């Protein structure tokens, strides 16, 4: 499974990097006379409601999806690791304060808080990344906090403290690395989550705004043409599902390697 995951993610990254150069069509170029035309040899995935090539738009949209995923996962994991390790290592009031914030943010189910934030901040790519990061760091913080709670009792951590290492050095050099394998697994699965969340927000009209090609907005546009042009719905959804499946395969595979007990 992990190989399938690696292959899917590799192809998606490659498509995002060089894909737009491989297709002769501009993702924004309109051919209104041929709008909603089905798949053909010249346009393998057909044309959309404004006569734009769906394949070209999917390849451009791959960049958006991967960029959002990467941005959300990078910032969330850094913030989450820092706050989680501080809470777990220091304990006491600091831990209480961070844990209560985590509790409150986790009281909002799924992407509800992200929807709320984008609703008030206004729909844009930057606000999507911001909103998903606000809800994203919490998972990493909880994970790293629990690892840090264990790690502070390890002999090598106590030895570092006994040798006079300051708290920042102990946390960054000794405590955090013990959580890295679990964080990598979470980040891989987090990519899948962020890609779906971005597409969901864009689908609801709260994310990337037209004419920028995003898989979520493409699916939203397809809703009005379920009867006369189902290809508008089929291909963008397929792209999201395959990429998310790829990251899930990869994350599941990595988790099995990090914790073989789970590979049952």
């Amino acid at each position, binding site marked *: 499974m992990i190989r399938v995951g690696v292959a899917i993610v590799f192809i998606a990254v490659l498509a995002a990097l060089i894909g737009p150069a491989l297709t002769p069509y501009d993702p924004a170029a309109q051919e209104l006379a041929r709008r909603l035309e089905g798949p053909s040899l010249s346009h393998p995935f057909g044309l959309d409601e404004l006569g734009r090539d769906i394949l070209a738009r999917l390849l451009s949209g791959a960049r958006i999806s991967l960029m959002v995923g990467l941005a959300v996962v990078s910032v969330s994991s850094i913030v989450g690791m820092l706050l989680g390790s501080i809470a777990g290592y220091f304990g006491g009031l600091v831990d209480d304060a961070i844990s209560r914030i985590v509790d*409150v943010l986790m009281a909002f189910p*799924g992407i509800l808080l992200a929807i*709320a934030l984008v609703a008030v901040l206004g729909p844009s790519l930057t606000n999507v990344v911001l909103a998903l990061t606000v809800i994203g760091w919490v998972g990493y913080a909880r994970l790293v906090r629990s690892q840090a709670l264990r790690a502070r009792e390890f002999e090598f951590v106590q030895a570092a403290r006994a040798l006079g290492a300051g708290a920042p050095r102990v946390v960054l050099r000794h405590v955090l690395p013990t959580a890295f394998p679990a964080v990598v697994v979470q980040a891989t699965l987090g990519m899948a989550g962020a890609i779906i969340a971005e597409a969901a927000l864009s*689908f609801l009209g709260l994310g990337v705004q037209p004419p920028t090609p995003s898989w979520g907005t493409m699916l939203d546009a397809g809703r009005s043409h379920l009867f006369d042009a189902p290809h508008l719905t089929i291909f963008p959804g397929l792209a999201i599902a395959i990429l998310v499946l790829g990251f899930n395969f990869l994350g599941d595979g990595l988790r099995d390697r990090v914790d073989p007990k789970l590979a049952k």
Partner: protein
Amino acid sequence: MGRYLVRRLLLTVPVLVGVATLVFALIHLVPGDPAQSMLGEGASEDEVVQLRHRLGLDRPLFEQYRAFLTGLVRGDLGTSFRYGTPVTREIRDRLLRTMQLAVAAMGVAILIAIPLGIAAAVFRGKWIDHAAMTLALVGISMPNFWLGPLLAILFAVYLGWLPVAGTGTVWHLVLPAITLGAALAAILARMTRASLLEELRELYVVAARARGLSRLRAVVRHAFRNSLIPIVTIIGLQFGAVLTGTIITETIFAWPGVGRLLIQAITFRDYPLVQGCILFISLTYVGMNLLTDLTYGILDPRIRYD
């Protein structure tokens, strides 16, 4: 048991206050003037001042916060800007529809997941197991905002078996319920398999097998009942995901519930209604999690909150 219940209830209070505070803060995150944003660029200065007064935005922040919390305790979430009616009434009018959808989705998920999970556990390592678990992973990866339109294309457009959207008959509920329940079914199937495999290693199951019971009978008669606790917990905890899922599912199928109301409120920049819907969904989620935890504590007396 009593101490566990009291501690668990007390721990929920700061979370509730935190959720309410965050939802209160939302309207103050609106860039610029929320009243101006709601009325649009063409509004006169007088109209903006009046709306600011109506929303209480011209009062000191602490006073606004106190009024918000007091209103919340009394069940008053303010007045909808668009409808001119109490937010609680708008939510109450659509609550039944959302609950119908959520319960139907959970029913669909349980009906699919439990047999799938049992089959995967009984035939562990065989093709049935691989197929069931791959199907579950596909279910988790398949976004409901794609599954919904796909089901509509197949069952409403091509086959013409089911209505494409709206309400009226029980048939209108089928596609939205499957769309919303699919991801939960995938998670539940994985959980059922894992929980059953754990149980199958227990001595009482080994003893039952030694008495000559087949693996299937040992599962159905003995192991399954004991593996139910984690499964029931997951069902309870996933209720929040189902509630959030209603936002997208109701939008796809024009289902007149709270989720669709939220998206319409966002479109019309009806911030009091947005606040009300967010608060309602998150408080229901916190309440369901609390209920799940308490039930778990009652079902398994070994659990203590230390």
